[in-house]
């Protein structure tokens, strides 16, 4: 298991380097002179030259990359072009609201998705299956920004039960988590259904029936445990969706998180913040998938030896 884990971690190194190159090049890919961008539109030629030297933009690109990596490894993500604050502070402030939002969204999505998936698989081709799968495909097709706005209209404006946005108390989490989790719940439900149906065809399930085990014990005790293996991987991949979706949902609910920071930074052309955020989002995604891979190794011993 340790060897497997080490191999997984080592396998990430080339990807990490690749990501850092992409993210580094980001600022250079923007049309125009980065030094002028930093100095501002009405800066003089001399100011631009000063900025260029200060940021080391006059050095060759490979050298700039090494400087960038050196800064990165020391936790220096640069200075926000708009607020002149260190980017790392801006991100640190916004990290926890996004973390908790993602956490609650995934938690309810897993609970609902697993339940719908199991019910659909065990009641195959009955009304429970059809309605479960119709719910799931609808959840997959709903635009989250629209769902969020409609939820605000119904629960916050018309019924006055919940806040319309922002983060003041725990009730603020309900509508955004519901909105962000819907698409993921749908994917998990569909995936659980097909994984569980595959497992229910296995011989050992028939053995279970033959020796008179109660049906609930077979489904929840034996089948689901094995069906969980692909579901775990799928859930890890859904994190990418969660991170991307948080940008949209945070914009709808005026959420003080990383997603809205990204959109605000784009409208202010605050490229250092955009760059840092893209890096952070992809690192998070990689880290979560690493954790998922390791859990997968625990659940399925075969995978460790391939």
């Amino acid at each position, binding site marked *: 298991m340790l060897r497997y884990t080490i191999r997984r971690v080592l396998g990430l190194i080339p990807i990490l380097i690749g990501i850092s190159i*992409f993210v580094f090049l*980001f600022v250079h890919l*923007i049309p125009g002179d980065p030094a002028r961008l930093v100095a501002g539109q009405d800066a003089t030629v001399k100011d631009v030259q000063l900025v260029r030297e200060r940021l080391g933009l006059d050095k060759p690109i490979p050298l700039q990359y090494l400087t960038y990596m050196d800064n990165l490894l020391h936790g220096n993500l640069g200075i926000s072009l708009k607020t002149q604050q260190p980017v790392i502070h801006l991100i640190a402030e916004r990290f926890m609201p996004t973390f908790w939002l993602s956490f609650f969204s995934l938690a309810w999505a897993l609970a609902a998705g697993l339940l719908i998936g199991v019910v659909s698989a065990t009641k195959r081709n009955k009304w429970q299956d059809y309605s479960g799968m119709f719910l799931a495909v609808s959840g997959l*097709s709903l635009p989250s*920004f629209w769902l969020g706005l*409609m939820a605000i209209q119904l629960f916050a404006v018309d019924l006055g039960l919940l806040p319309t946005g922002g983060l003041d108390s725990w009730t603020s989490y309900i509508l955004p988590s519901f909105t962000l989790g819907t698409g993921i719940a749908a994917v998990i439900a569909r995936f659980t259904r097909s994984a569980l149906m595959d497992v229910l065809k296995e011989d050992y399930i028939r053995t279970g029936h033959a020796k008179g085990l109660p049906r609930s014990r077979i489904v929840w005790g034996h089948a689901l445990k094995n069906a969980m293996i692909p579901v775990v991987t799928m859930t890890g991949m859904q994190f990418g969706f969660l991170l991307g979706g948080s940008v949209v949902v945070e*914009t709808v609910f005026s959420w003080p998180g990383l997603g809205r920071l*990204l959109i605000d930074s784009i409208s202010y052309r605050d490229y250092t913040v955009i760059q840092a955020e893209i890096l952070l*989002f992809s690192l998070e995604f990689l880290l979560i998938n690493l954790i998922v891979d390791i859990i997968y190794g625990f659940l399925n011993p075969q995978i460790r030896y391939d």
Partner: protein
Amino acid sequence: MATEKQIETMEWAGTSPLPARKSPFSRFMKKLIRQRLAFVSGIGIIGLIIIAIIGPSIIPYKITTVDYQYVLQGPSARHWLGTDPYGRDLFSRIIAGTRISLSVGFFSVLAGAAAGTFLGLLAGFYGKWVDSIIMRICDILFAFPGMILAIGIVAILGPGIMNVVIAVSIFNIPSFARIVRSSTLSARAALFVEAERSIGAKNRRLIWRHIFPETISTIIVYFTMRIGTAILAAASLSFLGLGAQPPSPEWGAMLSSGRDYLDTSPFVTLFPGLAIFFTVLVFNLFGDGLRDVLDPKIKD
């Protein structure tokens, strides 16, 4: 357990004397019709395509006609779905927006599928370092969550509907490359490819005449399944202000401009959202059905 050969003979024995030969297309249609929901959604897609083609020329109002006497009116006989904050007819704008959403969805997946298929064929066919390089690049692209990658690309290129198409097609490349690579690997090992190779066929011919046709059903299924996602992603980017800009009748952009009037005139956000939902839903349902008919191996 009966072996495959036995099953084959059993099937033959059951259909005497010889089964009527049906074209692959009619067999495909028969299976598809059996998937009732997919069939209905297929008709829905045809309907949407017709609306996209002729819609803009039959709408009752011009999409830019501003009428300050009828600002934010609810649905009525005069304006079926009401009017927006500038008094423009929502029904006409939603109909006109169909063309934008369908073409953005279609072309962004098409471009991503074309590039991804090409890379996947190369990687799967040539293997070795070609495969390593292409797949490592895909791994890196995969490490960026799809929407984040698209937002990053739009941040570089600037907002606009064309740039959204480019962004969405780039995030479609790696998944197509992976899927086509794995079908290429199994096709390359097939006996008929081996036979063709042994009579001296060139690589180019092997790839395009023999291996590519083997992968095509997988590509079609995946293509259909991705269109819904692409339409959603493009609408989300427009909603965020990164895609189509007002006064374009793009659904996401319309929805975003109706946001400020949500409490007094919810229909301005309701109807464009329903249009997105319905369009994505029919594509997803059709994709599901097509997968069950053509290629049950692919899951979500």
